[in-house]
């Protein structure tokens, strides 16, 4: 068993806007690209050119067909794109379940990491995570997970403006935001308040730090507005054309 630290008040995490996520996988690939070269072991791929390619990814995108509960009858389902990665939970069961202390939550900022030197690859943390956000690297035999790009956000070798997670920097739709969700005045906290951001599966009691902004309601079929008829305008169709042209004279 590993204990969680006393929270410092800083809760770094992501806010993911499902209203604008187009499901393009940019975040997932940028994540893989950075993290295969950075923190810990590379993110390996097995049978990468063969019949059953698989690999380690810290962020995956799922697409669902969803019909809102209050949708009109016969309304076609929407497609919702859902990026899934570690939520850096306040009560992270992946940490408390770890028998070696490899899985830990940083006291200073709440980021959940795996100390690969101490990881024995037992996989208990992946079982404990209700979100499926951890992946065992098949080549290295260690558990991999989102680091919130801890080696970017504090990286003094990167320009200040690039000190954000790779997924956030690359997202072409600006659907991903990074910040301190422990600070109610931070941009991300304000965004969550304004848009009704939600916890993923709150009933699990994990208190995720990451938040999802739900898709805005879609246009509903409504009767068209009363139709002004050009023919009924004074002078009919030609009348309105003439009045419009008169403005140019």
């Amino acid at each position, binding site marked *: 068993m590993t204990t969680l630290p006393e929270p410092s008040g800083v809760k770094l995490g992501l806010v993911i806007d499902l209203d604008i996520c187009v499901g393009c996988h940019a975040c997932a690939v940028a994540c893989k690209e950075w993290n295969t070269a950075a923190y810990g072991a590379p993110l390996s791929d097995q049978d990468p050119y063969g019949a059953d390619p698989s690999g380690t990814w810290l962020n995956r995108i799922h697409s669902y067909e969803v019909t809102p509960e209050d949708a009109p009858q016969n309304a076609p389902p929407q497609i919702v794109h859902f990026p899934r990665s570690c939520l850096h939970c306040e009560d992270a069961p992946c940490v408390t379940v770890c028998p070696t202390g490899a899985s830990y939550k940083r006291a200073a900022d709440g980021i959940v990491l795996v100390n690969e030197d101490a990881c024995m690859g037992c996989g208990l943390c992946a079982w404990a995570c209700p979100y499926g956000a951890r992946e065992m690297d098949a080549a290295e035999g260690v558990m991999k997970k989102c680091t919130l790009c801890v080696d970017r956000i504090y990286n003094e070798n990167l320009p200040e403006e690039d000190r954000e997670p790779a997924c956030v920097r690359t997202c*072409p739709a600006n659907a991903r935001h990074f910040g301190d969700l422990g600070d109610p005045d931070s941009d991300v906290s304000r965004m969550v308040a304004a848009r009704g951001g939600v916890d993923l599966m709150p009933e699990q009691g994990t208190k995720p730090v990451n938040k999802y902004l739900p898709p805005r309601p879609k246009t509903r079929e409504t009767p068209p507005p009363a139709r002004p008829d050009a023919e009924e305008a004074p002078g009919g169709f030609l009348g309105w054309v003439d009045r419009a042209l008169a403005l140019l004279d």
Partner: protein
Amino acid sequence: MTRRRDEPAPDLSPHMADEVAQTTCYMCACRCGIDVFLKQGADGRKQVSYIQGNRDHPKNRGVLCAKGSAGIMQHLSPARLRKPLRRNGPRGSGEFEEIEWEEALSLATEWLGGIRETDPKRLAFFTGRDQSQSLTSLWAQEFGTPNYAAHGGFCSVNMAAAGIYTMGGAFWEFGAPDWERAKMFMLFGVAEDHDSNPIKLGLSRLKARGAKIVGVNPVRTGYNAIADEWVGITPGTDGLFVLALVHELFGTGRVDVAYLARYTNAGWLLVDAPGTAKHGLFARDADGKALILDRKTGKLVAWDTPGAVPELTVDVTLPDGRTGRPVFQRMAAAYLAEDYAPEAVAARCGVTAATIRRLAAELARVAFEEEIVVERPWTDWLGRRHDRMVGRPVAFHAMRGISAHSNGFQTCRAIHLLQILLGSVECPGGFRFKPPYPKPVEAHPKPHGDTHPCAPLPGPHLGFPAGPEDLLLEADGSAQRIDKAFTWDAPLAVHGMMHMVIANAAEGDPYRIDTLFLYMANMAWNSSMNTGGTAEMLTRADDKGDYVIPHIIYADAYSSETVAYADLVLPDTTYLERHDCISLLDRPISEPDSLADAIRWPVVDPDRDVRGFQSVLIELGARLGLPAFCDAEGGPKYRDYADYMARHERRPGIGPLAGWRGDGTQHGRGAPNPDQVARYRENGGFFTAEIPEEAQFFKPWNAAYQDWAVEMGLIDRPQPYVFQLWSEPLQKFRLAAEGHGEHQPPDHLRARIGDCFSPLPAWYPPFEEAALDPAAYPLHAITQRPAAMYHSWGSQNAWLRQIHGENPLYVPNEVADAAGLADGDWARVTSHHGEIVVPVRRTGACNGHTLWTWNAIGKRKGAWALRPGAPETTKGFLMNHLIHELLPPKGDGRRWTNSDPVTGQAAWFDLRVRIEKAEAPAESLPASTPQRSPVGTGPDDLTYGGKP
């Protein structure tokens, strides 16, 4: 930072790059700026460690898509070719021997030299998505063959041609929505590219401002998934839907009459003399200028008379006694007709009449009641001073889904008509041109096809005909070009018809060729209709056992399906190992507020015996003695492509690159600067020049813009023009079809030209469905481009193929229910041409009469260095097997192409099919036969990167 005592201390500041090289992405056609992180590898060579978007780049402003981030895997693909190859087995087998470059170039020179000396048209040189058309077209022109084009004919020529003929510019590369100001945005037929990151950035900007996004697409993925409203239209009916919106705007008196009067030909007078040779042509003055009836003076004056305001609704008697009728009147009559009433089109479009009425009302409300103002005075070309810039904040974008129909040209025209009626082109909040556009159709060249041994073509291959007199026909009426572009079959085939080249060459119709020279186009697989038939054509032999296409030369970086059919393979580099030039002479990367161009440069050296194709082409040009590639002594004029980029001049002072010309301080115009490429590298690989504020809107009519465009070398004199709602070139073709004039179409085409060349945007049913029994083929079938894949390239990419390794056929629930199909079942899909048996997935998020799948995921066994059993080769499939390059036979013995009758655009999405449940086969059908890989297959596993 506080850290608990027992907490590990990972390295938070790893060193990720020895240097960061800035170049241009090539994972799709979007051309974003990238920062390539380079580190020294264990072998001492530079290695790519990370690729991110360039924050300063005008295209992507720092962001990068999945393809771009996966560039490392493309750069390191096991499918990379390594050395020139010469075929030593049957065509299609993939059996090759490696040869030296000298041998390869000598062989190519021998084949091509012989052709040039005897009959240059026996070379057909066609290129794919290469973005170097200003070089490749010059080379082909110098060679003297009329048979050159790039891939536009099977991609989006309808969009380009309709835009340029209508308004002097088009979507994507030639224009963009005003993302910062639009309040309502309609997106037609756009899958998740064209162009990739700018659209995503733009949608995000619209959402941030609360603008409404309407997606019109049979499939609700990608951008349509996040649209505020999705219009799940039936394929091929977009034009009908748009013209119903137009009907509503006319019927409710919500069109921008002032805009039409000033900036379009709505007031130009048409000769109204049915049955005569001039009917529907413009009444013109002695100088050839179209006439208007000036409201102020009541006189007939030239359209561009300062101070004149045209009557739009009044017929006039012309000096010769004939009647002159304003275009606007013809429009009102055409679009107020009940054919375009919402109720009349609803069932066919799959959109309710109420939705059409509501959307028309919304467009009008936003355009006219929520107008925006940019407080910038400007002066138009007639000297009228305007205090401010008034915008109609509705913007549109459309792309390939609209293009890929046999009614696509007219549909694209209809979308432009809608924009123009709302007054929303080139105003704040609307659709805006990107330099070098706007440019009137008259500013483009005419097509050229006259060929002579050892002589360059007299002008560019591709151009914009103004009428039948500009067609490329021999005296006997036969086609000058192998693809029959610019014939009565496809008069405005302004991008050529690459999809007909192999079929026509194999048939010897209109003639036989000697060498087919292709670059970067997978014509033996996903880029051709009728894939199986195309393979047969490429391997067809005559009575003597000789291939009917005697020589095939192919240049590509990767072991694609097409490589297997080549006799000689010229291996290209990857995009990180080459020079390239994204030129204003070609397909620019400008933005509405700025001109921009860019380069690629070798940020790493190839570790294989490969060469950038453009440099190879330049060397071949010198070896063949093509004048533009030889110096005064007959030796090579350019060292390589980089040298050409800096030193080539298209006109005096105008070259491939606009920035840092002359002594390095001149832009746009200026003498060649040997340091130019270095200056681009210093600047992150691109050049950009902001358009002066006063010149940023109303560009076709804005005097300041016209002057700036001349200064920058985009045009040589101011060329203001008005939008051509009524297209006189189209009417000229129609008059010819009625029997007028000396240039006459063959009789079998008269009716079709009459039906399809309406000078006002119109709708007619797509040809394939019109030729078939709808009961036998009740469904539409289309493909969508996934955001994380670009054509066939992605399947060699270890990361991207984990995202899209197979492509189920998505079947709407109601169709699946009727056919008894559940997820994971297999289905037989049958068209008039063929059948496929493929895995199925049900969906509710698409048009109920439309099947769809992801584009170009299916692969031939042995291609792309994939290993046996790769899902792309077992479960993946191509829709192409169902699509024929010809329409169903009409019994007249003629080969009617499956193309738009105006532009020749390949009508991929006209496909009609039926579906039934099938026994699960061992693999998707038709199963491919394996090709031998000249590069082996990829490794068992991959661990790229590692601790820095």
